[in-house]
């Protein structure tokens, strides 16, 4: 089973609408990384969260880490076709990152 659970597994959103993806861990998160992957390509680093309650934003994407450091959310405001892809969360586990299964986002015009 996945140590990092992402939900939903996939979602379809109308262009211009907001969406939220969640990433939940059974263990304390000492570093949580969000990546985006376009179909058939490599992963692009989006942002990193370390402190409980931390929130970061880049353009229309906001990521938060809860106070207990066991859950993170990624929120996209006013989605655009360029936001389509697979979003993955990764957690620091010793010397490496372990990843969730990913959330596939489809943006409909």
């Amino acid at each position, binding site marked *: 089973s996945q140590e990092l659970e992402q939900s939903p597994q996939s979602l379809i959103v109308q262009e211009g609408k907001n969406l939220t993806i969640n990433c939940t861990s059974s263990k304390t998160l000492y570093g949580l990384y969000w990546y985006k992957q376009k179909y058939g390509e490599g992963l692009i680093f989006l942002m990193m969260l370390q402190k409980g309650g931390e929130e970061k934003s880049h353009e229309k994407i906001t990521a938060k880490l809860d106070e207990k450091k066991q859950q993170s959310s990624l929120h996209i405001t006013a989605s655009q076709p360029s936001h389509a892809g697979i979003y*993955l969360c990764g957690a620091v586990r010793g010397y490496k990152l372990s990843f969730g299964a990913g959330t596939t986002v489809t943006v409909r015009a």
Partner: protein
Amino acid sequence: DVKVTQSSRYLVKRTGEKVFLECVQDMDHENMFWYRQDPGLGLRLIYFSYDVKMKEKGDIPEGYSVSREKKERFSLILESASTNQTSMYLCASTRRGDYGYTFGSGTRLTVV
């Protein structure tokens, strides 16, 4: 522009063949990683290397080996390819202590 380059985007190999997947980075990174990505399973770590000639097993090393003779190059070897190794293979690199990995574009391997 910094880069991780994987030698092939698509490969088709026959069962039993020896397969080499090559990865080169131009950022002088110490750490390099090989992951495979399968639907519903996310990314799983096969092997990683934290220095030249050093390697460590990841979560699913069975059926794979690696080679790192130079700092910039990390090769993944499938000794005898099997159909269950059909997958997307992703290489990544990073500086020691940094987890903001830079990924290559991936190699989609099909074993028939």
